[in-house]
């Protein structure tokens, strides 16, 4: 025992030498602060959840990205100064893992020399990639990272190279709270939160902050859950006027189905994770009544927004389905980068960053977007109402 202790002391003494050595490790000078420049083509990286838990959402975003790139390339590419350059996509899968997302980001910016990145879909995978994006001075636009802190540093300053195309949680959550008080006149609500990511919990937090009525019940579920009967049975005997359920369509569809079957017919209000045609398919048409959700993108938008109309048509033609919100946001992410390149007349990654930060009145599929100082897009929000599985009404939020 004593010998062993002696040993440890010797080893730690040697380790100290190594640590001292570590001190002399070469301070690496990062020479790439000038950012990446395009070659013959404009390389855009995609750091996306294509396998693992969030693969469903990631694949929808990939479709939107590919649709946008095909369309741009067919039209001759992006005008950079006097020449036109085509986009070359470098798509990499981050397995819905934060560590892998960081590695993918490093590969995209260092080895593939992309000038901009779209993704990742989830906030955590996104924040894990921020250090590598910042080091290489390459901007990234996430179609769906919703945590309010995603684009901010610890001290509250903006992350220079990080942008998003979606709403942040506070805006959506508080809008839903106001809508439920003012329009639905709900005085007692139950909250049902997706407790497996920042998305559901963040929205619920923002909702609770704004909502003034009584919260009768506060329950959570996990991504991949299929049985909500126990929670719903418990809710049934509570006096509630509405349910606020921030989460994704795969679980929300089931919640709506099981709630209606259990005889709960109060309004269910959700967020843009629900804005997907699959919701009705999973819940069943006759069950999808009095369902509301906040969203930047409406499949009804095609009636007023020509950009959205052509996107919906192209999506339908290629994938034979109604375009989901995630695809629309990803589609816009590519066009936002395109707009930044054109306004700066350069596809250098630092210039694209400047262009993205100055984005103003950009006409996208998900509305007219102006980038605010915190790199959050300002665009109008719609609350859609579904009756019998179709959108029956849309309320615009100012």
């Amino acid at each position, binding site marked *: 025992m004593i010998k062993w202790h002696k040993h440890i002391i010797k080893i730690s003494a040697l380790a100290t030498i190594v640590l001292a050595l570590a001190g002399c490790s070469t301070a690496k000078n990062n020479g790439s602060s000038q950012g990446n420049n395009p070659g013959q083509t404009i390389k855009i990286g995609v750091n996306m959840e294509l396998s693992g838990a969030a*693969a469903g959402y990631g694949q*929808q975003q990939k479709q939107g990205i590919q649709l946008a790139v095909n369309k741009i390339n067919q039209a001759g590419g992006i005008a950079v100064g006097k020449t036109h350059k085509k986009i070359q996509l470098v798509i990499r899968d981050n397995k819905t893992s934060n560590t892998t997302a960081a590695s993918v980001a490093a590969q995209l910016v260092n080895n593939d020399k992309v000038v901009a990145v779209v993704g990742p879909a989830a906030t955590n995978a996104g924040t894990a990639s921020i250090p590598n994006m910042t080091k290489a001075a390459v901007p990234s636009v996430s179609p769906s990272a919703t945590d309010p802190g995603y684009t901010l540093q610890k001290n509250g300053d903006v992350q220079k190279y990080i942008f998003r195309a979606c709403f942040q949680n506070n805006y959506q959550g508080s809008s839903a709270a106001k809508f439920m008080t003012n329009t639905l006149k709900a005085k007692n609500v139950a909250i049902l939160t997706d407790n497996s990511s920042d998305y559901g919990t963040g929205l619920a937090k923002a909702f609770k902050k704004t909502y003034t009525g009584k919260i009768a*019940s*506060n*329950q959570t579920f996990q991504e991949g859950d299929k*049985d909500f*009967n126990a929670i719903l049975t*418990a809710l049934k005997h509570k006096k509630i006027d509405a349910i606020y359920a921030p989460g994704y369509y795969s679980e929300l569809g*089931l919640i709506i189905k099981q709630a209606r*079957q259990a005889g709960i017919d109060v309004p269910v209000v959700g967020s843009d994770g629900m804005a997907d045609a699959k919701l009705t398919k999973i819940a069943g048409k006759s069950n999808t009544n009095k369902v509301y959700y906040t969203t930047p993108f409406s499949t009804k938008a095609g009636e007023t927004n020509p950009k959205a109309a052509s996107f919906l048509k192209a999506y339908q033609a290629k994938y034979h389905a109604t375009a989901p919100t995630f695809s629309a946001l990803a589609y816009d992410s590519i066009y936002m980068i395109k707009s930044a390149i054109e306004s700066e007349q350069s596809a250098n990654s630092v210039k694209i960053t400047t262009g993205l930060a100055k984005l103003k009145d950009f006409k996208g599929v998900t509305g007219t977007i102006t980038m605010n100082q915190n790199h959050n897009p300002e665009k109008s929000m719609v609350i859609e109402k579904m009756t019998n599985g179709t959108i029956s009404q849309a309320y615009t939020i100012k």
Partner: protein
Amino acid sequence: MQTIGQQLINGLSLGSIYALLALGYTMVYGIIKLINFAHGDIYMLGAFWGYYAINGLHFNFILAMLSAMVFCALVGVLIEYFAYRPLRNSPRITALITAIGVSFLLENGMTYLFSANARSFPQVIRTVTYHVAGLRISNIQLLILGTACFLMLLLELIIKRTKMGKAMRAVSVDPQAAQLVGINLNHTISFTFALGSAMAGAAGVLIGLYYNSIDPLMGMTPGIKAFVAAVIGGIGSVPGASLGGFLIGLLETGVQAVGLSAYKDAVVYFVLIVILLVLPAGIFGKKTKEKV
């Protein structure tokens, strides 16, 4: 009172699903002492088979379920033949890693071929809700409960009353001795995999119909829960697996009913640990005395 009754129904219908899955785990473990990690994914394959059988081949429900059972039995036997048989004499932990590999392969292969998106299962049977004494129960819940109980009884009969069942029990006690008395080890193990996988196939179609949502990763969580159920019941025991399944179903329902939904899984694991500490081989598990 009414709420409690309703929650009991919820718990039982959830539990019957876990029980059906736990059966497969328990049988395979009983015979070759392998935690078949891919079992939950076979259940996913069953659901997808049901989806295509109904949508593409226009099978009716019974036919879809039977064909899914046959299909999954086949897949189970193939997996055993290619991935587990070469490792029968290797350390058990090696076989476990291979099983994890098979699970990854099935999940990601299906994601690659059919996309990761959730899809809705064709509703071949219309949901009818019956109201009895203030309680509501749907025909599909009854169907699941009925099928689960029927299959469990059938399984118990096969194991206890048939020659193959006898061989299975013999192999699980001592494979070498079983071979000595003329039992074909390979056939018996293949049969066990076929039987267990068929149960998973049936569960896949039933759940597809009940929840109306299937995706390539749907087997992951229920797979682990069902395994926990099998361990609680005493892994290797068929009645134990059923009991474990119902127990977990009721437990999860109970925890959510009292408003602790965030800690649902934590409570399940806690109960698992406590049961194992009191009964180290599970509720119906055989206690083995170690000989020096």
